[in-house]
Structure formats: C-alpha cells, structure tokens
C-alpha cells in the first residue's frame, strides 16, 4: 500500500518543528490568541468544551495496521485511551494537553500521519470513496489523483489563507459514496466520447444552515489539466469570496451570489491563461508510480466448491456486514464500533490494537474507515470470513448492525461539543433501543439515520434518509426532521417534514416515519424511492396527525 517517502516524512517533521515554535511563542505570550487560532487550526488543533481536540488525517480513509497502532499509542500516551473516527476520514483525540501537542505530532510522523490542513481556512484533506479499488463498475481508482491533488495544495503559497474552509472530494466509482456534490468542490472521474479520462467539476456545495448542492462548472477537464483548473477556481474564490460576513465565508455563497454560470465563466477565463503552462500539468510519471503504490495487494483465488460454515448469528452478521469484492475469492468486511450509549466512531486503544492484529491476519494489514464511522477490512479471503467473525465476536466487535437503521451516524453533540444545541448520542441510543429486534432491523433494511447537534451538520443529517437536527426552543432540546436526503445515485438535500419535535417525542416520530416507509414499500424499494412516489404527506400525517 501507498506509504510516505522519507522526504514526505521530513516535510512532516519540519511542519511539527514550525508549529512547536509557534506554540512556544503563544504560551510565552508572544503570539496572540487570534493569530495562534488561525495557525493551530491549520494544524488540526481545536479548543473544545473541556480540553483541546486534535484532528489527524486518514487520507482516503486508509490506514495500515502500523498506523492504527501508532494512533492507539497516541490514545494511551496523550488522551484517555480512545479516539473518535469522524464522518470525513479523520480521527479526533478529545483530551489533549497543549504543551504535549508537538511531541504527539512528532510521534506520528514516523507512521506518515499528520494533522496538516485538517482544519482552518485552507484546502482540507481530500476525501475518496473508502472502497476505492474494491468494487465492480469503477471508472477509475480515485486515490492516485487525490494524492497528487492533495500534495499540490499542501501549504500552497497562494491558497493557504482562503475566505473559508475548502473541502474537496473525488469519486471514481459508479455510485457516489463521497457525496461530492455537498463539497465545496467535487470531482467526478469520467470518460469522454473518445475514451479519455477527465473530471466533471462541481463547485459550491455544502451542508450547514444553508445546504446547497454544488453546480457543475465544467463537464470535462482532462486529467492532465486538473491542477490548473483547480487553481483558477481557488483563485476566483480567494479574490472574490465573502470575507466580511462570518456566515457567508464558504464558496457556496459566492457561487450563489454570482450565479453558477458567471462563476464558471470567471474560472474559465482565468484558466485559459494558465492551462498550457507546462509547470501546471499533472505529472503523469508520478501518477503511474502512484497507481502502482495503490494497486491491490491480492489477486483472484478460486474457491469453487467452498462450503460456508452454517451458523445463525454468523449468517445474520454476514448478510449485513460482508460485501462482494471485485477480486474473486475475496470479501469486503464491515466492522461496526457502535455500542449502545457510546459515541458512534469511538474506538478504544485496545480495540485499535485488536483491529490492527486482525488486519494483519485477515486483511493484508490494511484498514479503511467510512463516513458511517465504521471500519472496513478490504481484503478478506472468502475462506477466512468465518474465522474473522469468530475473532471479532471474541472481542465484542461483531455487531451485525452495518447497513441497518441501528448503524446511526451522530456527532458528539452537546455532551462534548460547545457548539451543539442539543444532545446527539443519547438520541441515537434511544433509537437503537427502540429498534433492538434483529428480525425487524433486517426487515427494514438499509436506512440511514443521521443526528447533528447543531447547524454545523457534522453528522450530515441533510443527506440521510432520516435526518435529525438538534436545536433549542424555550430552553428545551428539539429536533428538526428532514427526509429523503441522498447522494449515492443522485444528490438531494433532505426535505423538512414540519415543525421540530421535542427530545421526548423524537424517537416516536422516527418510529412513525419508519412505519410509513414499511407500510408503503413495494418489493425492495429504498426509502428515497418510496418518498418520491408517495410524497411527504403520509409522513406528515403520521407524525403530526
């Protein structure tokens, strides 16, 4: 699998050295809070309700077993023995002491891990489908492109002080697991009529209080020209983006104010000046080299006549948690970390070490993280899936909830976050308690429930089948419900159901919604398809009737 070179690691060390000096100046009073804030965020460091939170990038959601062990060591040495896998290919540590940050980051450089640009007003780490390279029908594995683009915008001299944060996602798969059109900029790998590879570019998406779907600004940018195109888009944003209004900093507001056509025209006008600059062409030799680094570590194996072990619990877990692999004889195994009452995505250092050991034994030493805050073993041999399940069961990691309603995505909520207006995790727990019958869960099938504690929308409630947004009303916690958000086949922001519902009644409302779905579903129809066919009215009547 792809690993950082010695030079890349040297760069990480230099970045830590620089940040350490800034930290020392801040602690001695020489660097004021406003400037330090801007600098620390660029190094992934937040001030939270109780302590400092550090966000480490997990590029493209991929970790080696050694990297996962390094994260476990950090959890023990600098935190309270756990970390939190986010929805956007990062891991966060919530109990970090300021004077220890540099040592922590230095410990991670050896494993090729870092926190560069995981926050702040710069290009963030680029996200890709966590199943990149594994599924049928993929146009192209997005990861080598992600990596070249990530490098290019790493401490970019022109674009490191943007009006707001800038998130990029790239999808090369048939279905869009990256939700690219809710990103500031999304790239979709496509082939033109001549079979040449390029990108469709979408700009101005985002969630939050003003959720927007990104507009297409270019239908085909040849692969070799993508860096110059991205520079032009960022240049227009850097120069014209709103800097005067805290709530209008993101590029979506600029695209809305100018209109997508005018924004595209400005980008294109700038791009015509630079697209032929040889310095801005994507390095195709490096691309080929990266393709080799990202090549799959396994080849096809013939298991004709293989007999799967018969076991009731195993078969339920397998149905929900195991997916087919494009390489014959292999499976993709999803592992849920969710336990009742704990934050989705939380993992203890012990769990991380167990997963690292199991990944070495069963998955070529590779682990991936998903936006549903689960762990994926990408290369499990078909004849070893049962043995893996037995091991997972032994360690309490064999929850069969993946792909069911019980695999809820929730932000830390008011229990941990000073921005949150309402709790998230206790609501998730109550929903899980309500739907604790596995037969019922299997009957309902794959249905997303996402719970955000405030409009920052960290749990992406807008793009869930059922989205809950926490808010305050007369000093009490209420939840606004949105239905039928989706990104996989097309991108739609969830529709508001009606007035927000109190914390006390919200789980009843969720159950009502699920029941309307079940009662109206035809065959294997998905939630969004039922919603499109019957409309919002039956859901409204059931919840508010």
């Amino acid at each position, binding site marked *: 699998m792809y690993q950082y070179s010695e030079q890349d690691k*040297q760069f990480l060390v*230099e970045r830590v050295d620089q940040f350490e000096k800034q930290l020392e100046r801040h602690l001695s009073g020489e660097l004021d809070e406003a400037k330090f804030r801007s600098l620390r965020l660029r190094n992934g460091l937040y001030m939270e309700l109780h302590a400092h939170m550090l966000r480490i990038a997990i590029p493209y959601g991929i970790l080696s077993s050694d990297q996962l062990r390094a994260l476990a060591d950090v959890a023990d040495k600098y935190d309270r023995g756990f970390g939190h896998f986010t929805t956007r290919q990062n891991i966060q540590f919530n109990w970090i002491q300021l004077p220890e940050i540099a040592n922590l980051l230095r410990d991670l450089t050896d494993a090729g891990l870092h926190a560069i640009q995981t926050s702040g007003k710069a290009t963030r780490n680029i996200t890709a489908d966590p199943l990149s390279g594994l599924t049928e029908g993929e146009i192209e594995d997005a990861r080598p492109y992600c990596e070249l683009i990530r*490098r290019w915008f*790493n*401490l970019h001299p022109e674009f*490191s002080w943007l009006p707001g944060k800038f998130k990029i996602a790239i999808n090369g798969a048939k279905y869009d697991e990256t939700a690219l059109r809710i990103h500031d900029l999304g790239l979709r790998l496509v082939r033109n009529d001549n079979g040449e590879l390029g990108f469709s570019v979408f700009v101005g998406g985002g969630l939050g209080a003003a959720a927007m779907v990104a507009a297409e600004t270019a239908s085909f940018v040849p692969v070799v020209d993508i860096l110059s195109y991205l520079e032009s888009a960022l240049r227009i944003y850097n120069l014209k983006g709103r800097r005067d209004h805290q709530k209008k900093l993101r590029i979506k507001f600029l695209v809305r104010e100018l209109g997508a056509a005018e924004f595209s025209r400005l980008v294109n006008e700038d791009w015509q000046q630079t697209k032929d600059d040889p310095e801005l062409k994507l390095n195709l030799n490096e691309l080929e080299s990266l393709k080799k680094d990202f090549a799959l570590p396994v080849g096809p194996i013939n298991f004709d006549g293989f007999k799967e072990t018969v076991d009731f619990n195993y078969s339920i877990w397998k149905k929900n948690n195991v997916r087919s692999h494009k390489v014959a004889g292999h499976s993709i195994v999803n592992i849920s970390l969710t336990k009742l009452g704990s934050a989705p995505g939380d993992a203890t250092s012990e769990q991380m070490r167990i997963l690292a050991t199991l990944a070495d034994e069963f998955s070529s030493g590779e682990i991936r993280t998903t936006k549903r805050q689960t762990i994926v073993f990408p290369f499990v041999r078909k004849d070893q899936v049962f043995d893996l399940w037995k091991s997972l069961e032994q360690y309490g990691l064999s929850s069969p909830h993946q792909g069911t309603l019980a695999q809820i995505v929730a932000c830390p909520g008011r229990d941990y976050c000073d921005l949150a207006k309402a709790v998230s995790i206790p609501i998730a727990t109550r929903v899980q308690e309500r739907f604790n019958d596995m037969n019922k869960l299997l009957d309902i099938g794959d249905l997303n429930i996402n719970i955000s504690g405030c409009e920052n929308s960290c749990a992406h409630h807008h793009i869930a089948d059922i989205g809950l947004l926490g808010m305050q009303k007369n000093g009490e916690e209420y939840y606004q419900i949105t239905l039928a958000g989706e990104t996989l086949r097309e991108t739609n922001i969830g529709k508001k159901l009606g007035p927000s519902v109190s914390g006390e009644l919200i789980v009843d409302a969720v159950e009502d919604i699920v029941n309307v779905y079940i009662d109206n579903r035809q065959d294997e129809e998905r939630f969004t398809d039922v919603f499109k066919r019957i409309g919002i009215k039956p859901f409204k009547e059931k919840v508010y009737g």
Partner: protein
Amino acid sequence: MDEIKNPISLINKDYETINLVTFEEWLEDSEQLSKLGVGVILDPSNDVGLIKDSLDVIELIALDFRNFDDGRGYSQAYFLSKRWKFSGEIIGINAHLDQLQFMIRSGITSYQLLESYKGFNEEDYSNGFSICYQAAANNKGLNLQY
C-alpha cells in the same frame, strides 16, 4: 501633478527612497504619476488587473498583508510576479513572521514586518521548509516534489 501629497515612502533594494501613491490615486492620474517614478500601494480589495497595462511605468508595488487571515495579497502577488512578470520590486508591507514563507514563494521580492515583530529572527521563519509540493513564483532553494 508635480508633487505627491502626504507621501508614504519605502526604501527599495538599491536603498533609494520611492514615494508611494494609493491605488485610487494611481488610477486617477497615472499619466502624471508615471513621470515621477512612484510606487503604488495596493489594498487587498483592489483589483490588481486594473494596473496590468501600466506595470512597465510603475517602479514598485507594495501589497498590504496587515490582516492576518486575508489571503488576497497572495493572489495579487501571483498575478504580478508569475502571470505578468512585473520587473519592479513587490514589497509585502505590514507583514507577519508566520507568513513569510508564503509571501516569498508567492513572488514578494522584499518585505517590511509589522512593528510588533521587532527582535525576532526572520531567518527562522522564512526558511522553515526544505521541500515544496507545487509550482510557484519563487521556489528557490527548495526540493521540488511535483
């Protein structure tokens, strides 16, 4: 115009004093001012494209980096230096120590730090990295990784 009101001056690399005019003053009377050999001071909000055609008669351009989080000056520097190959000096004024590396790589040819940074060793901040990952106006001394 035969003299500049309330002149602000900068010392250029040849230790000459150059008088500066604001962007608006320049646009108002560029013909006369160009004869005096002045520099132009740009605010981050100024459209640098408006002086593109007179770059050959401007001695020096000063870009203001006072606001720590305002990155527009880096794009202004890019246009002047890389895109339009401005041959005069581009001075980053009201500069911040922690941004020197970005300013230099964007094409700033010299800088004037804010008063509050007096006493710091600038070298510590302008030479922090040995590697860069992208083409830029000035990648001198860096190991190119792209």
